[in-house]
Every structure is written in C-alpha cells, then in structure tokens.
C-alpha cells in the first residue's frame, strides 16, 4: 500500500479543519503509533496484519496533516527496545520496512510532486545492511524536497540519540574543531538526529499508555503531550482534531514556559562566555585587572569566535552524516 493517500476531506471534515485553523496550529506533530498488536488481537488477525494496518493509518494521517497545513510529522516506528521481541516478529517488521521503503522508491515521482522529504532517525547501523541501503536511497532521493517532512524513527531511542550527540561533540573536540567549553544546550540540540527539524509542538500517543517510552525526550520538554486511548489502526480524523484542540488550549501557557526556558538558556550561555573570557584575560593579562570596556570587547570577540568554530563544526558534522548515506547508496543493493 502506498505512502501517499490522495483525496480531499469531506465537507464536515473541511469545515472542522477550517475552524481549527482559525487558531494556532502545530507546525510539527510527533506520533507514538501504539496499539497495532492489541488491534490485531481484537480483530482476530495476525500480528503482522496489525502492523500493516498501522502503516496504512500512517499514510492516512499524513494526508490529514497535509490538509491541516501541518508540514512536519515525526513517527516512532521501531525502538531499539523492540529488538527484544521474538525473532519472528522482528524479522517480520524488518521485512515490512523493506517492502515499504522499496515502495517509496517506486513512488519517487509522486513524492517529488508533493515535495515530501523523508528522513530516518536512529542508530541505523543496528539494522540489516540491505534495509540500511534502501533507507539511504530514500533519504538521498528526497533530500531536496521541502514542502513537507516525514521523520521516521527507526532503531531509535532518545537516550541513544542524546549519547550520540555527546559522542559527536567529543569527536569535534578530538578533531580540534571545537573546545569542551563550547558544549551548550543549543549545540547538543544541533547534534541530535533531529537537528534539521524544529522541536515538536504536539506529541500524541495512542492506545491509552501514558508514558514517553524513550521517544524524543529532549525535544519534547516543552511540547504539548496528548495521550489518547484509541488504538493506532483505529485513529480517526476526529481524534487528530481533538489532539490539536488540546494543543490550542495549552498554547499560551506552553509558549510562556518555552520563552522562560529560552531566556535562561541565553543567560547561561552569556555566563559561560563571560567565565571563559575572564579566565583568558587572567592568563594572558599583564597582571592589571582589565577595565569594563576591555572585558566587553573581549566578550564580543570571544562570542564571535565561538560561533564561527561551532558553525565549522556543524558543517563538518553535516558532511559526515551526508557521506554516511551517500556511501550506502553507492553500494550495490544485495539481491
């Protein structure tokens, strides 16, 4: 079945969408698509069939998001913890993923037409090589598209993602691109797999569970969390509207909290820069305490240098990541 479902909303859906769009709308929605197996049990079908229905629901949800002008969606498709499942189920899921990515490559013209950019976030080297190659092809093929964005978290957990970001910063230090003192909250954010996306405004988890299960823990610290009891394959347009309404009700207070946090962040960065400058002046000064003007000039200069260093490091990181995908693409696909 296809990734892209064509078709308009019906009249009632259109009206509701227009009413919602009169208020603030999330620009990035994340989904924990939970409940496929319980759905399969409920309908007396095979587990694999439940996962297939789950995928169809994803395609449908993307269509709704397009009509609601939500340009970016992130989904939790496969957690590193899911490797603990039976070999049969894991192999089945890998096979399903392979089929879906193959299908995606077949639909590349359609994807171009709709401007869909696919990104896959996770520790991809944990996956079978042929799946990695398909993923790389999908990512590289759609890289330049910019109308809407689908981020698929596969072989992902938030803790692994944060650890990887720290590893990348340590790599930057090893390469002499940045200093340890350049490590900051915003730099860590730029080193996450999701660095090309703004933080999700809204996180929806289906099937009634009320936990985050190691999904986007860093990025959703100031997102609206909505837990819905419907099973994922039964998700409807109205469930989505309900979640968006929750977002709209929480919008002002979350916005305030976000701004407060950003203020703190900026202050922290300023303090850190000041401390570095003070240390530098102490070491390289001539024993006399520097006057306020000299300190201010030194601070401005230090901040500018730090920002340049960080930019160069991020460029190098981007290049490293792009090469990872391009190298996989240039390998012949295993039969």
């Amino acid at each position, binding site marked *: 079945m296809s990734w892209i479902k064509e078709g308009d909303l019906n009249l009632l859906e259109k009206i509701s969408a*227009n*009413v*919602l769009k*009169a*208020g603030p709308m999330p620009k990035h929605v994340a989904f924990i698509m939970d409940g496929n197996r319980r759905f399969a049990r409920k309908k007396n079908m095979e587990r694999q069939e439940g996962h297939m229905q789950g995928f169809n629901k994803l395609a449908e949800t993307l269509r709704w998001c397009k009509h609601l002008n939500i340009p970016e969606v992130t989904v939790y498709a496969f*957690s590193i*913890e*899911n*490797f*603990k*499942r039976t070999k049969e189920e894991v192999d089945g899921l890998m096979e399903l993923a392979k089929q879906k990515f193959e299908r995606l490559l077949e639909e590349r013209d359609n994807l171009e037409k709709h401007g869909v950019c696919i990104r896959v976030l996770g520790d991809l080297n944990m996956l079978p090589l042929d799946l990695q190659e398909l993923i790389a092809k999908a990512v590289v093929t759609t890289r330049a598209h910019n109308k809407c964005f689908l981020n698929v978290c596969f072989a992902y*957990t*938030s*803790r*692994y993602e*944060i*650890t990887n*970001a*720290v*590893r*990348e*910063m*340590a*790599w930057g*230090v*090893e390469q002499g691109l940045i*200093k*340890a*003192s350049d*490590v*900051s*909250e915003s730099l*860590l954010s730029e080193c996450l797999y999701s660095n090309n996306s703004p933080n999700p405004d809204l996180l929806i988890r289906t099937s009634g*569970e*009320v*936990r*985050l*299960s*190691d999904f986007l*823990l*860093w990025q*959703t*610290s*100031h*997102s*609206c*969390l*909505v*837990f819905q009891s419907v099973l994922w394959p039964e998700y409807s347009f109205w469930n989505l509207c309900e979640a968006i*309404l*929750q977002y709209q*009700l*929480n919008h002002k*207070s*979350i916005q305030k*909290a976000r701004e*407060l*946090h950003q203020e*703190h962040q900026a202050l*922290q960065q300023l303090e850190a820069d000041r401390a570095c400058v003070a240390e530098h002046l102490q070491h390289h000064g001539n024993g006399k305490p520097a006057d306020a003007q000299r300190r201010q000039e030194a601070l401005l200069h230090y901040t500018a240098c730090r920002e340049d260093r960080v930019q160069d490091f991020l460029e190098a990181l981007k290049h490293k990541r792009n090469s990872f995908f391009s190298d996989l693409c240039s390998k012949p696909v295993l039969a």
Partner: protein
Amino acid sequence: MAMLYGLLWRLLLLLVHVNTALVSWLRVRLRSWKGRLWERAVALNHNPDATANPVTGNRDDGRRARWLSDGKALEKLPVHVGLLVAEEEPSYSDVANLVVWCMAVGISYVSVYDNHGIFRKNNSRLLEEILRQQNLLGVDGSKYSIEFLSNGSDKHNVVSCRPTVKVLSPEDGKQSIVQAAQQICRSVENKERSSKDISVSMLDVLLRESKNIPDPDLVLKFGPVNSTLGFLPWHIRLTEFISLPSHRDVSYDNMLDALQRYASCQQRLGQ
C-alpha cells in the same frame, strides 16, 4: 469567511472551557458526597469504646494504619514519585501534604518540581511546611524522618533507606545533561578518553552521580498544562504520567486514586 471560522473557533474553545468547569464542579460534589458516606461508614464500624473517647492520638493511629494498608493493598507501588506542579503560585501546604501522604503510603522517594524553580528558591520554606504537616497529621517524626536533599548536598554515597524528598528545578534537566556532556568532552580534550568510548551507560552513571535517586516511576502532574515543562528529560523515559486538575486542596483520596491507576498499568518494555 475567515471571520466566521474565527468566531466558530472561539465558540469551540468556550464550549470546552464550560465543559471542563462543569466536570470539575461535578467532581467536587461527588467527592464531598463520597466523603460524607465514608465518615458514616467509619462511624458505624468503629468500636463504641474507641468512639466514646475522641483522643486525637487514636484517630491519628487509625489514619496512619489506613495509609500503610492502602499502600500494601496496591499491586505495585512506585519507588519514586515526581510531583510536577504546573500551576502558578504553588501552595506549600498542599504540596507538603502530598509529600507526607506519599511517604506514609510507603513511597521511598518523592521529588517536587515546578518550571520556575520556585520550590528550589524556597527550599527551606517547603521543608518547614513538610515538618509541620508531619506533626499535624500525627506522623511519627523519627520513623518517617526525611532526608531533605537539595542539589549538590549528596556528594557522598548515601544509601538511604529513609524516605527522601528532592526539590528539583529546570537546571536538573537539560542543563545537567549539558554539564555531564561538558565533563566528558573535557576528558576527551585532555586525552583521558576517546569519543568512541562514550556509551549510554557512561552518560547515565554521570547523571546519577549528582542525583542519587532512581528514575521516577510515576509523575503526578498538577494543573491544566499538558507538558513536562522540562522535568528531568533523561530520567523520564519509562515514567507514567497521571494528571490531576490542581494541587490546591488536593485530597488523600485524589492521590490514592492516581496510585491505583498507576498500579493497574502494564509496562511491556519494548517487547
């Protein structure tokens, strides 16, 4: 046309607010009705000798025993409960109540958080209030004595078997992760380790060094805001979130309800 949709949207929000107000009003009425029923039931079951002698001590003993048995009756009890106050102007006495009830029911670690860092700034006031509530509710001070840990005071490895209260603020969240990352990068800068050595468990151990408490099993979120507001991002990967409308005038039964909901949830841990 846009104006019409704008009006309809405002009407929709109004309807939702009216609905929420109605539901919470009904909840209050139901609670007070249930409360009166309970009082009558207790009066019927009580030994006439005990009721004839309304000494505060007896009543407190009864309450403490009830709390303990409530805790034992639950299928599972969280080891660490986080109290996330997502409301403006926190009420210290209500938060203190919650802390004391949690510990009386058998929960070993309780943390208190708000995203303005108000509790952290007024650490001592909260402690005073908790001690006062302990005395008021007749909870034996020495049995349930609290180790009141604010950040940084537990550098030594204390294995505490007494209930512990921790006051947290946004600095304990992302900022702590950044500090750990800086520490690791500094050791890489000093050639003490390589970037390839960095693992999830290394970061986990570092983050646990300064906050020697287990991950929260349950977070009780008070207030209308549906967000974690920066609460311990690293530690909440498997935390259950249960929302309560407000911490103001929260009752023991509200808290017990939430604990019962927690007890019935099923964690599959990826499998």
